[in-house]
């Protein structure tokens, strides 16, 4: 791949940042606070969201993939790995889609992403326990995902503004 080592190392740091965010958010906002099991703030998506705009689809895919693998390697079980993978990639797909349709801002993309994330996880759960009963969790999760999506975008917006956008034409 013809990416510079500078880029690769930055993506590495961002992956680490995403990992750190996902671990520490449970320390400050333990999942016991949330009514539905498996509901989280999803702060790591700040990294995903910013990375989509700053670096594009492929690097973000790598970041998400490596983040899931690392969580799995650091003492996760197979089911949660499948979960984060399903949720992460479905959300990534929809975020990229929404971004392509240029009318949406960070907020729209983020809400779409978190909704897709939850849908992906619930679908995998239904598959895993072979029961559609899990779907009953989805409405609540979707409502919460609107809130968390907006929150993530709100946290990402200032960072984006500060770091800046790439101009068309690749100006430096």
């Amino acid at each position, binding site marked *: 791949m013809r990416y510079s080592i500078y880029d690769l190392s930055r993506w590495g740091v961002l992956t680490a940042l995403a990992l750190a965010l996902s671990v520490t958010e449970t320390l400050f906002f333990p999942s016991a606070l949330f009514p539905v099991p498996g509901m989280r703030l999803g702060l790591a998506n700040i990294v995903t969201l910013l990375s989509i705009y700053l670096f594009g689809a492929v690097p973000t895919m790598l970041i998400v993939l490596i983040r899931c693998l690392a969580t799995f390697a650091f003492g996760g079980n197979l089911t949660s790995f499948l979960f984060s993978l399903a949720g992460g990639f479905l959300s990534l797909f929809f975020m990229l889609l929404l971004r392509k349709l240029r009318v949406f801002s960070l907020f729209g993309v983020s809400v*779409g992403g978190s909704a897709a994330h939850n849908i992906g996880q619930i679908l995998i759960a239904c598959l895993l*326990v072979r029961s559609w009963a899990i779907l*009953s969790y989805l409405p609540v999760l979707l409502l919460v995902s609107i809130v968390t999506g907006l929150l993530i975008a709100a946290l990402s917006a200032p960072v984006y503004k500060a770091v800046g956008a790439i101009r068309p034409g690749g100006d430096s």
Partner: protein
Amino acid sequence: MTTNDPSPIRTVTPRRADADKLAYRAHYRFCRWDAVVVLFVLLLAGGLVFGLYLSAKNSLSASSHKEAVLTVDGTEVWRVSLSGLTAAKEYTVTGNGEKLVVQAESGKARVLSSTCRDQICVRSGWISGIGQTAVCLPYRVVLRIDAVGNGAAAPSDTNTSYDVISK
């Protein structure tokens, strides 16, 4: 470059064409189209609620009762009627050194304890609504409240009900 513009930071470098493709000026302010997304998700949630309500309603006939059903890996292992329970009933599932205990009382059921790591199933607490579930994903155990109609398994007729089968 004017001083008002935020300076871009050089990121992906190699091919000019790629740089063009990657150049996205993001809107970082909430705009009206985002409201569409929010609305869409809201509608989706609402639709799901309606759909689930309908399916629950369909399975709820005039004279029916609720049952708690426990399935492991998709196979039903325990079923108990939640009406007419004068006292709590428990059921334990074990295997591979793991253990999960469910408890059923009149009108509700819950996962009482589990040796799983995340304890999400236990933290789900009591479930009582039809279609509600408590799930232990690592153990592939689902505790579900079913609505059972008269025809299905009504234990009123001596000829069609039993406590156990000798085989």
